[in-house]
């Protein structure tokens, strides 16, 4: 038994790849928390903190898939559009076409995975950079969402649907927060304990070595795309439940918040290194920062500047760490 425990902790330690940067981010997170508790009015209330968690849940779910994508050495800029498309499609199917809600949800999830798997196929089949393929998706999916909705929100969903995005467990914990926690735990497990997860690291760390070791690079990449597409659609459905409409205008720029969270969480842009736990910290960091800046009444345009600078610093830390 002790042997197994030791092994697991070693694996986690090695995956962590850099205790220093991890603790660096933890320290930054604590400092941010203390600063906001001192200077941001109403920050340190359970109501506000739970709101922060709920606000980050939609990004957090997607960030799990994005972490795999970046560890594999790819990147996906289409997830915001994929969220809007999923939301619009759900509205059109469930409300305008009167599909049973369960069926509509299942269909939206499935098509999300398939469209992204298709993008992944194009990525590997023609060796196109993932950035370019997903840039095309970024435009096409947003356009398609507006096309089928005429850019108007589609309402109403049945009241019971609101539970997933707006409900509470035990009357205090927002449902999306619970969902996010489950997704993070699941993806943590996939990343450290499955053959697929290890393959993602291998493909991103050195694609040629992975291929010559008999790992299927194609399958690994396509599955990674499909998972991210699935999670984007999933997040889009919960978001629809939260706002109780199918909308083509949501999640604008979401991809960059998600990517930023993953990078701040210590995942290497060179591929091969990164952790789901780090991403969780990154998501929290961005969520707390945004919340605090709002509470402190900082000019929204200045908020964007600050977030940009923080991402820049995170990237610089990540790059210098890789070079050493």
């Amino acid at each position, binding site marked *: 038994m002790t*042997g*197994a425990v030791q*092994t*697991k902790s*070693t*694996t986690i*330690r*090695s995956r962590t*790849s850099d205790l220093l940067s991890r603790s660096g981010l933890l320290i930054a997170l604590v400092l941010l928390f203390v600063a906001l508790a001192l200077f941001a009015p109403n920050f340190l209330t359970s109501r506000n903190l739970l709101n922060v968690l709920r606000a980050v849940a939609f990004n957090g779910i997607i960030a799990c898939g994005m972490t795999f994508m970046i560890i594999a050495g790819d990147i996906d800029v289409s997830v915001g559009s994929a969220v809007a498309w999923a939301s619009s499609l759900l509205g059109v199917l469930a409300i305008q076409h009167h599909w049973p809600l369960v069926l509509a949800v299942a269909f939206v999830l499935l098509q999300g995975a398939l469209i992204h798997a298709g993008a992944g196929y194009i990525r590997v089949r023609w060796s196109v950079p993932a950035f370019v393929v997903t840039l095309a998706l970024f435009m096409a999916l947003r356009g398609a969402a507006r096309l089928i909705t005429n850019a108007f929100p589609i309402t109403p969903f049945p009241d019971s649907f609101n539970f997933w995005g707006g409900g509470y467990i035990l009357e205090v914990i927002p449902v999306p927060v619970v969902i996010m926690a489950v997704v993070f735990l699941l993806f943590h497990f996939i990343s450290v*304990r*499955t*053959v*697929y997860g*290890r*393959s993602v*690291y*291998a493909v991103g*760390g*050195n694609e*040629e*070595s*992975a*291929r*010559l*070791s*008999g*790992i*299927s690079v194609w399958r690994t990449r396509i599955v990674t795309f499909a998972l991210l597409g699935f999670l984007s659609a999933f997040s889009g459905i919960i978001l629809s439940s939260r706002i109780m409409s199918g909308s083509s205008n949501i999640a604008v720029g979401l991809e960059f918040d998600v990517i930023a969270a993953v990078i701040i969480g210590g995942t*290497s842009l060179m591929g*091969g*290194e990164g952790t789901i736990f780090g991403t969780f910290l990154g998501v929290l960091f961005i969520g707390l920062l945004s919340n605090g800046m709002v509470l402190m009444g900082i000019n929204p345009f200045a908020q964007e500047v600050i977030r940009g600078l923080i991402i820049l610093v995170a990237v610089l830390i990540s790059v210098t760490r890789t070079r050493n």
Partner: protein
Amino acid sequence: MTAVLEASHLHKYYPGVTALDDVDFTLQAGDVRALLGKNGAGKSTLVKILSGAVLPDQGEIRIDGQEVTIKSPHDSFLQGISTVYQEMSLVPGLTVAENILLGRWPTSKRLGVSFIDRKEILRIAREALGQLEVDIDLNQLASRLNVAQQQLVEIAKAISFDPRVMILDEPSSALPSEEVDTLHRVVRRLAEQGRAIVYVTHRLQEIPKVADSVTVLRDGKVIGTIPVAEATPERITQMMIGSDWQRTQWQRDAELGPVKLEVRNLNRAGLLHDISLELRGGEVLGLAGLLGSGRTELLRSIFGVDPIDSGEIIVGGVALNNPSPSAMKARGLGLTPEDRKQQGLVLVFPVEDNLTLASLRRVSARGVLNPGKERELAEAMVEDLQIKTASLAVKTRTLSGGNQQKVVIGNWLNTLPEVLMMDEPTRGIDIQAKEQIFALVRDLARQGLAVLFVSSEIEEVLDVSDRILVINQGRITHSRQHDEVNLEQLMALVMEEINL
């Protein structure tokens, strides 16, 4: 008459190795000097010192009698030394003329703005190519040139600096034989213009056609410089090998097993021609050939890394139609690739993960890894192969070359292969690690593994193999049993010129 180039008492030390030991090297104007030696004899160190890529630890260099200091490739240019390396450095998206003048494009000022002067580029480039008397379209993109044309453009680029000394590093190794004649003509012409030329080569047969004299290096020392008339292949081979090399004696103590791998009439356009071979359990089959002979290509084709045009690969009696690394692995084949960092390892992975990279299926059930099993396999390999590492959790990047190589081998042994193909397993590792790897190969063979062994070091192939195939220009040209051939004979077979 003073020598154009006079290097004297050059010394260069690397940790644990004396790369150059008191080397003198003198060249007269108009001389073409062939520079020969085995891998590690010091040829490339000498070339690197003259071209400014590394600094000598001791010694001096004179150009036209003047002592010079060469601290960088730029210094080397300024002193009139131009080097054409084996690796092509042309920019594919630029034209031939633009490449010849890369980074030094003449400009003309109009309205205060510098414009590239295309006419002047063409004029200078035409002049440089004209000196070679070859016909290449100056406006052609470099990406559309064949290897021979690229080589000539590289030479033209070197000439455009009007160097006193030109160093050509294995210029013929990548060329098809019909193009080699053009190269020789060009080199002779450059010498007639009064330049001194260093011509690094492995091909003994081309020496009389191109060189005036031959310098042979061995173990970092100059063994001798002889005029070309005396440079018979036998004499040169003898100079390259010396007499101090002792063959390791070992006894085969088991019968060979059944045929594990069979290749029939394998072809790959331009690279591999009609290759057939058979490999039995318990047998070490060595593949001896020069760089570019098709050694690596053959292993990669068998393993399904590169596609083949025709031929059959039969593993354990079953022909495989669609070889891929994962299919081959499933059939019990393994390949330790020639470049461990780029092709064998994920350097950012902990040692443990690299030791199970190819055997994830073995350490998992239904896609879920079993960390205990993983640890067990990794630990056993560290012990068996004597891999020196602080722990299984350190990044593989931090290990020495020899230990990294052992990790690559361990990774494949963990797949429990029946056939292991090893491409240059001893490249760039220390003597002790080399010897451990040889002992390991023999030991694995004793346990029934079939090994296909490739090395640039012909001694190593001879030492470790039960049987040796000579590969030359993509063809198997000879087959010899371990006790049928000595080093000089094998060297001669490997360097033999074949007429196609």
